[in-house]
């Protein structure tokens, strides 16, 4: 669906390249996470992919066509939700959606249906200036789905949302994937990336340091050990066992049989750990 080869980009008047030759490809129906600290080149990559920056070198093809060769019809195919909600403050939610809806030639969703999907069904006639930040974020998110695009670009879709609404947005994203949509997710939030993405790319200083599935990364980056927490004579004790051949490890089996076990955890790394290990940077 999306193929990027040796993509380089330098902003006018900038001394250094912002993107230093990155490569990745995204399959149809995949959720691809693009993770990195601020200033790493995430937004620049997204701007190139959505056709806003055209002075790049390398290859960026979407649906088999180079971005530079697409005309405005490209926007019938892709939906974009930016990090900050960009909405007319003086218009109501419905008016905002109807305005954007009018620009598309193809089939569109009913604005009311989308509002109901994110729990704003009864707030459609409120002006945006009366919306809370979380409500704006939800509206911003559904705006990207209005014209039923095949590719959806989401920038921090759950930022500023309470856990219930964040879960709802994540469920909608997964539902879109089920319907065959391809999703490009830019985020700082490792937990969100871990939950949603089929694969993630780590980008730092304009270079991709690693691309893999979150599961694979966590297993590779973790220690093959199991930590058991149990109570021994009223005291909480923690003990590590090697994961290989654990079923035949008498001390482990004995512990399980004789002690009051509190927790058992394999020592997989978190995505955040892997990010720090592989890039030497924190996600700020």
């Amino acid at each position: 669906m999306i193929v990027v080869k040796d993509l380089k980009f330098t902003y006018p008047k900038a001394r250094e390249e912002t993107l230093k030759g990155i490569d990745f490809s995204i399959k149809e129906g995949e959720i691809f996470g693009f993770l990195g600290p601020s200033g790493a080149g995430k937004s620049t990559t997204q701007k190139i992919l959505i056709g806003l920056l055209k002075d790049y070198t390398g290859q960026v093809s979407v649906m088999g066509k180079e971005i530079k060769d697409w005309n405005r019809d490209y926007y019938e195919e892709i939906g974009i939700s930016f990090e900050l909600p960009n909405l007319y403050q003086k218009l109501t939610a419905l008016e905002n959606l109807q305005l954007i809806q009018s620009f598309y030639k193809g089939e569109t969703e009913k604005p009311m249906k989308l509002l109901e999907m994110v729990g704003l069904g009864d707030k459609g006639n409120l002006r945006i200036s009366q919306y809370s930040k979380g409500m704006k974020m939800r509206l911003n998110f559904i705006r990207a789905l209005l014209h039923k695009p095949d590719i959806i670009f989401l920038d921090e879709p759950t930022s500023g949302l309470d856990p219930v609404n964040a879960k709802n947005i994540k469920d909608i994203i997964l539902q879109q994937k089920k319907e065959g949509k391809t999703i490009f997710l830019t985020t700082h939030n490792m937990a969100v990336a871990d939950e949603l993405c089929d694969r993630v790319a780590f980008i730092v200083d304009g270079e991709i340091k690693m691309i893999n599935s979150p599961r694979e990364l966590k297993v590779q980056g973790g220690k093959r050990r199991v930590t058991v927490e149990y109570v021994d004579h009223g005291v909480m004790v923690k003990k590590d066992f090697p994961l290989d051949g654990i079923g035949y490890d008498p001390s482990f089996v004995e512990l399980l049989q004789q002690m009051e076990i509190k927790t058992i955890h394999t020592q997989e790394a978190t995505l955040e750990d892997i990010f720090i290990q592989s890039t030497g940077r924190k996600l700020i």
Partner: protein
Amino acid sequence: MKKIYILLVNDLRNILREPMLSLAFLGPFLLSLAMRWMLPSVTIYFANYVDLTSHYPLIFSFMLLLAAMLTGMVTGFLLLDERDDQIYMTLIVTPLGKEGYTLYRIIFPMVISFFYAIIALPIAGVGQIPVGFVIPIGLLAALEAPIMALFLACFAGNKVEGLALSKGFGLLMIPPIAAYFTDSKWQLLAGISPFYWPVQAFLAAGESGSAYWFYIFGGILIHSILLYGLTNRFIKKMG
């Protein structure tokens, strides 16, 4: 067509829901009515000092300019709103695109301003200028509006600066007034102000000769150059 209609309705909503913009938007209309009802009394009041009737063409030409400026200012403020809330980003990633958005933002104030230019004179009670002369002047005045709008969008950091710049833009009204009271070829220097051209065209409208068309075409040239430069700058600024 549907797109333009919806954009227009959207703009009207944004304007009418903010008192300052509503007032500025209706300003040209109110100004024309004020001219109709108050100018004769003001003329009589000052009759002992100055014969205002001899300056009516100048006064009415400035009424047209003010209409264009107010329309441009309203559009400029819509643009600043769209920039402050990053709404233009949403608009340019739809099939409207950067080009469609920019074009709409240029044409909207032009149409409104042209419409005002055509109706303002009859409302104000000026009947003696033939329609054939009013339309080209209306077009010239219409070009002023997007220049004002883009000028604000390119150079104002926020709406407060926008307000200050609108007043600053008003200083460009001085050269055509100075030219009006100067009887020398040097008055052409005032042509660096875009306002000079429609005012001079208006003043020449009643005279015989080619002066009228000189000012119309000169004005179109100067306005087109300004509009082209500002449009490029505006598109670049969108990133």
